């Protein structure tokens, strides 16, 4: 075996050293960073040019405050699993770009952005009309971590106030019911404009090897929340059935997306 020249020895030694430096730094960088708490500190110092339209808790009137961020009461009595954490600990998804508000209305977030950027959502485009309201399911996505459903609530005639789901059911073809999820609905811009909403639901657990989910999504009732006066409950149901690919890999932890102005208390 030929002996390495002094120059080759130096180069190899330097390369070894660089590798050790890289490995050392990578190891020491492996700690979690919690974004939510620190975002609140930073946001308090910043002046934003425009706030996204959001449903404010103050508009809830006499509707239960829980519908805004917490889990919704399910029509069937079952254990209430509680709300999905909307702003979980940030994890290292460094270097991943974000899509804009393309597929989930005005809502953005790490995972929503990834789904939009990689076009992983399925266009559903189903509309159901009942009780003077049309609900359209626009897009949906399902993986081992979440189910997202982007939809719109449109009154057939001009009607002021916020429109939000009051209760719903979501099941798959295997009979599993999804755990209690979270809705976010952007405030309507006019009496004839739709409310744009996203359901962030816990995942389903289909049999191993399942590549698609056929979901039954029933919006059982809505709340119409005027700026003044009592909330009105509008009974449905609006029934949807659609199939989406099931991604066995969880694209990201949880499903955090932007909180309404004023922040979540999570």
């Amino acid at each position, binding site marked *: 075996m030929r002996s390495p020249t002094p120059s080759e020895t130096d180069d190899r030694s330097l*390369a070894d050293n660089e590798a*050790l430096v*890289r490995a050392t730094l990578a190891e*020491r*960088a492996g*700690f979690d960073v919690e974004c939510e708490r620190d975002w609140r500190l930073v946001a308090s110092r910043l002046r934003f*040019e425009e706030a996204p339209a959001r449903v404010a808790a103050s508009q809830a009137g006499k509707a239960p405050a829980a519908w805004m961020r917490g889990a919704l009461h399910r029509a069937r009595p079952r254990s209430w699993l509680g709300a999905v954490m909307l702003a979980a600990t940030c994890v290292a998804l460094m270097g991943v770009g974000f899509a804009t508000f393309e597929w989930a209305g005005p809502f953005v977030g790490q995972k929503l952005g990834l789904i939009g950027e990689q076009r992983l959502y399925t266009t559903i485009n189903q509309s159901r009309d009942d009780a003077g309201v049309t609900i359209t399911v626009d897009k949906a996505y399902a993986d081992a971590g979440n189910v997202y459903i982007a939809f719109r609530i449109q009154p057939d005639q001009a009607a002021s106030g916020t429109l939000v789901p009051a209760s719903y059911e979501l099941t798959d073809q295997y009979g599993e019911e999804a755990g209690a999820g979270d809705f976010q609905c952007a405030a309507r811009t006019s009496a004839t404009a739709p409310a744009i909403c996203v359901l962030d639901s816990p995942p389903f657990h289909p049999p191993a090897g399942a590549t698609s989910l056929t979901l039954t999504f029933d919006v059982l009732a809505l709340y119409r929340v005027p700026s003044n006066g009592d909330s009105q409950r509008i009974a449905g149901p609006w029934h949807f059935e659609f199939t989406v690919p099931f991604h066995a890999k969880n694209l990201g932890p949880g499903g955090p997306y932007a909180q309404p102005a004023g922040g979540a208390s999570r």
Partner: protein
Amino acid sequence: MREIDSALVNAWQRGDESGTRALFNAIYPYAVRMGSLSGLPVDDARECAQDAFTRAYERRTQLRDAQAFALWFHRILTHSILDQLTRRQRLRVAPLDDAGELVEDWQRNAPAQPDEAALDAERRDEMWRQVQRLAPRARLAITLRYYSDLSTREVAEALRISEGNARTLLSRALAQLRQRQAPDMSPTHEHLREVDHIIR
């Protein structure tokens, strides 16, 4: 931190809260880790990262090209970290020895080194101790080069020094790290040749 999607940067530049928050979520963990690796306690690293993000937001209209956001933010973050480090000066500044030679070919994506698999925790601990003994600017340069994977030119831009000075800074820091490692932990080629001879 690789390139951030331009559309997100544009939303942030418009002062949009949702876009700003999304950008924060994308880069804040990285910025905290940069500060920590550069020698700051985690709480100080968080404060640095928050300051850098705030400063960047206040100057967001100065960024002409959304695609250049990553390097532009690195400059602000680096400045913030250096400020904190010099203020603290809690580590003994080790004088640098004479510069060693830089390998000419800086491969950004170097092929896996055979020794990487064999690096054990003790060597990494010792390397960490030696990295923390470097002067603040040298430590930051090493972090930018070997954690953030910036090129020498980009390290120079982040530190606001010439590329030649950046090469010298990195070269000297690496030489110091190599020399200060515990002698019996560094495999030498004499040792490897001896082992080879024994195997044969």
